[in-house]
């Protein structure tokens, strides 16, 4: 029923002349064009120019980032596939592998929030099931501008609805992530989506084509005129004309993607596939070139065979379309009919559009003519690489806590912070994501890490996404380390052994040395932390040019972490477990207020060096906590991060409805003790204080008694006691109230108050 009428090929004879303006519009620098002339020994055709622009843009070629990314640790005994494929792959025992990656869809989401975010989810899901894995969870990390900025509310509403709209329909639980607000994202929101899938270790599929004369098959949805030059758009900063770039955003169809998933997994199970690549950024061009280049083969495509949504599409349009839910495969010739039958059953398009050749050329035919004939290696894995100049930053000096006069009492500060945009509950967001589908969500959003059972258990994955951008700006090296350490800590806090990460590096314009400096130092920090914690990088994505009118975002290298629990029933939560349990702080507290949320939100000062990260201490403390969880010695655990110790304790109380009586040890000013953001710390509760203290002492980890759980109040010695139900109300109120402000007042009467 999907066998469509083939549009009659129309030869576009009036192709524009290649002018310097046209070259610039394609995002190619004059020296890059010179390189093209040299490679070809002639001027490129219009279609060829489009293909070069698609392959050599920053988004697809990683030309500014490549030499730095190579410094990251990518190997470990459990790593099956590191960076360079559609997604990273790690072994988790029992013949199973976890396939995962995080990817940005920042530029499109700012221009068209619903579709931009939706197709970001669609793209990352495709990256995962392209490798033969069934997706089992999604996460996302979102950065928005100042809540007071006129665009912010609409962006939040659109992005969240888009993520939910795609993931919910596709049928994967969206189990975690983070949401932040900062005026530095006013002109560029960030949408980083992570997908995690499960495969058998001996059934992983790769992009590398093998064999000459093998059929190249187009699968999935038809090609339309949407998303043309999407990748090029994402490789430039925004000016005043961002709105005009709307047509470069793709339109998502989660229904087709769900069918594509089922059909792909079915033909993979039947052994039909030699190589497979999804059509993401730069669509047909990028997928065909990558398959050929990786296999040292040529590729010949016949565009007259490509299923099109509309008649009269030019070769240029077909090669650059970023229509979604499409795949390119190299099939085993004897399995072609079997594969086609499966795709027809699922109602999807299936067309042989080309073959592999021995020539290492990328040859494209359309309407009887050759419209492109290019060297495939130079287009693909031998694209230009830049060593851009970078400036080292003079890092901010340490802030002396004693010099910060507390503007309000500790209790008042806590109330303010819990009801603030960055620390408040993000329930309004994650309730729009189906986080329970597939029936394996052990820990839902709102804790340190999500926990998702593997099949029927007993193993489970722990998943998290973390970064603290203000630290990265103040000291990119320490900030890079901290992002990795926090992900590692969040996984440890639920009892998981951290295994590997995916990194999603969001920065401004790399042609500015100070931005390139942030990038280089963040990567150095990430590399150092990943090496120290045995936490290799197995996949990732770089998003540069996140700038508007010359103003860059905060450097935001989001780290997606994956860990493994042997027993899902032993996963630890942040909620207090019961009354009269001892509360301990694990780790050392100096009262570090530099770059803290307290200093920013209560004192109005964004300054100082961020807290340094002692990776040996991180490891020691995390190993201790994980062991305590494994051996059943503690009853709750929470890592200490944004907002500091008291915010962490309050979150544990709010999650349980159980109060606490707290006291601080002498020596540190109260506001610095309760709100400082020293690293490598956890709050735990226990009914067995003695064994916990002995274990900590044995490995030299500092433990500080904070008090005990119980009652309905958070009672801090010397402070006004706070009711837990009141804190909870504040914690839950900000975001729904903010988002409700988007509606016209009339609509209030139609809206019923929701249950909390």
């Amino acid at each position: 029923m999907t066998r469509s009428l083939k549009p009659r090929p129309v030869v576009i004879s009036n192709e524009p002349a290649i002018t310097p303006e046209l070259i610039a519009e394609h995002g190619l620098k004059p020296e890059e064009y010179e390189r093209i002339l040299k490679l070809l020994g002639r001027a490129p055709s219009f279609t060829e120019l489009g293909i070069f622009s698609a392959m050599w843009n920053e988004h697809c070629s990683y030309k500014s980032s490549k030499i730095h990314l190579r410094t990251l640790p990518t190997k470990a005994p459990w790593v099956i596939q590191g960076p360079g494929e559609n997604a990273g792959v790690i072994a988790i025992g029992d013949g199973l592998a976890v396939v995962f990656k995080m990817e940005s869809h920042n530029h499109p989401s700012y221009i068209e929030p619903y579709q931009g975010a939706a197709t970001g989810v669609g793209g990352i899901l495709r990256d995962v099931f392209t490798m033969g894995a069934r997706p089992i969870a999604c996460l996302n990390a979102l950065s928005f501008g100042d809540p007071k900025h006129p665009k912010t509310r609409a962006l939040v509403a659109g992005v969240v609805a888009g993520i939910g709209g795609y993931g919910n329909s596709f049928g994967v639980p969206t189990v975690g992530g983070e949401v932040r607000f900062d005026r530095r994202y006013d002109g560029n929101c960030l949408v980083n989506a992570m997908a995690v899938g499960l495969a058998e270790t001996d059934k992983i599929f790769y992009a590398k084509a093998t064999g000459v004369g093998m059929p190249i098959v187009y699968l999935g949805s038809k090609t339309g005129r949407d998303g043309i030059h999407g990748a090029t758009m994402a490789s430039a900063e925004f000016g005043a004309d961002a709105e005009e770039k709307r047509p470069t955003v793709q339109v998502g169809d989660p229904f087709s993607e769900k069918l594509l998933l089922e059909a792909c997994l079915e033909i993979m199970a039947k052994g039909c596939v030699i190589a497979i690549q999804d059509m993401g950024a730069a669509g047909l061009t990028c997928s065909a070139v990558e398959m050929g280049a990786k296999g040292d083969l040529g590729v010949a495509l016949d565009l007259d065979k490509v299923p099109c949504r509309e008649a009269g599409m030019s070769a240029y349009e077909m090669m650059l379309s970023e229509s979604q839910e499409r795949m390119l495969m190299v099939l085993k010739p004897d399995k072609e009919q079997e594969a086609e039958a499966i795709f027809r059953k699922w109602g999807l398009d299936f067309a042989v559009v080309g073959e592999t050749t021995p020539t290492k050329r990328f040859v494209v035919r359309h309407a009887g003519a050759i419209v492109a004939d290019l060297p495939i290696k130079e287009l693909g894995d031998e694209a230009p690489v830049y060593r851009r100049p970078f400036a080292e930053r003079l890092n901010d000096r340490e802030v002396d806590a004693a010099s910060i006069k507390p503007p309000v009492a500790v209790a008042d500060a806590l109330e303010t912070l819990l009801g603030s945009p960055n620390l408040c509950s993000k329930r309004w967001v994650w309730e729009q994501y189906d986080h329970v589908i597939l029936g394996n969500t052990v820990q839902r959003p709102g804790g340190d890490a999500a926990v998702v059972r593997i099949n029927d258990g007993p193993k489970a994955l722990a998943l998290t996404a973390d970064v603290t951008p203000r630290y990265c700006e103040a000291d990119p090296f320490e900030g890079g380390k901290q992002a990795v350490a926090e992900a590692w800590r969040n996984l440890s806090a639920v009892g998981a052994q951290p295994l590997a990460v995916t990194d999603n590096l969001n920065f401004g314009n790399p042609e500015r040395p100070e931005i390139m400096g942030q990038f280089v130092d963040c990567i150095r920090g990430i590399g150092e932390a990943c090496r120290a914690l045995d936490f290799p990088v197995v996949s990732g994505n770089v998003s540069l040019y996140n700038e508007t009118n010359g103003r860059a975002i905060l450097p935001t290298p989001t780290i997606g972490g994956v860990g493994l629990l042997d027993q899902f029933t032993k996963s630890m939560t942040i909620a207090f477990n019961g009354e009269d349990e001892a509360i301990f702080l694990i780790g050392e507290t100096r009262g570090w207020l530099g770059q803290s949320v307290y200093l920013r939100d209560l004192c109005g000062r964004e300054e100082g060096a961020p807290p340094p990260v002692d990776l040996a201490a991180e490891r020691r403390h995390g190993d201790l906590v994980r062991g305590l969880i494994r051996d059943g010695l503690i009853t709750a655990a929470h890592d200490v991060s944004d907002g500091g110790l008291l915010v962490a304790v309050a979150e544990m109380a709010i999650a349980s409805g159980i109060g606490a009586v707290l006291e601080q040890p002498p020596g540190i000013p109260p506001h610095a003790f309760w709100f400082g953001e020293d690293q490598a710390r956890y709050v735990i509760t226990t009914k067995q204080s003695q064994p916990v203290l002995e274990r900590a002492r044995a490995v030299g980890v500092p433990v500080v008694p904070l008090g005990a759980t119980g009652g309905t109040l958070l009672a801090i010695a010397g402070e006004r006691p706070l009711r837990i139900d009141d804190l909870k109300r504040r914690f839950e109120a900000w975001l729904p109230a903010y988002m409700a402000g988007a509606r016209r007042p009339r609509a209030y009467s139609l809206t019923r108050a929701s249950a909390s």
Partner: protein
Amino acid sequence: MRSAVVVFPGINRDRDMARALRLISGREPALVWHGDAALPPSTDLVVLPGGFSYGDYLRCGAIAARAPIMDAVRDFAAKGGLVLAICNGFQIACEAGLLPGVLMRNAQLRFICRDVYLRVERSDTPFTRGYNAGQVIRVPVAHGEGNYIADGETIARLEGEGRVLFRYSSPDGIIDPNWNHNGAMNGIAGIINDRGNVLGMMPHPENHVEASMGRTDGRGLFAGLVDHFRVAA
């Protein structure tokens, strides 16, 4: 109990449902393709599961209601066979004429996924015999269009004939708009047809069936059905 789960393109809670049926009835359900013309012989229970059949394009459930298999499902129901229609399945059942009314967009116009409380209104049906009347259970919802609406006459009939089996409530069983997340009329979460053999409900009891995963409030529905067929046999 022999169950058949109908799989329409875009359905995505078929695996959740199959697991619940397997765990509680001890028997793997048959998965029936939407393009098939017949149900497996000696099927006891037909399930229309949750998801986004045909992407929910056009209107939730509208396309699936016209799939080839639905004639067989209607025949099955007409002969008194038990049909369990959950979430998208409920929407499909309404579109197929198996149940009255329609599921509109949630009052807040947003998709909502959270645990909700349901008051079980009757325990003398095959679907609710595993519960006590008045019992409150906690199960998840995950939908954007679960706001049950019907004309006044239909609502009066449903209420008069005791055909509302589940209602959104507070944890104490109080029917209160503050605990009705989608704005459904009379807090209606699940209804049966006039013959009492087709249940449509928005929440997902199939997601709360394992003690090791935290809650088992959904088990009663499936265990009750297993009992029903055991007694009947």
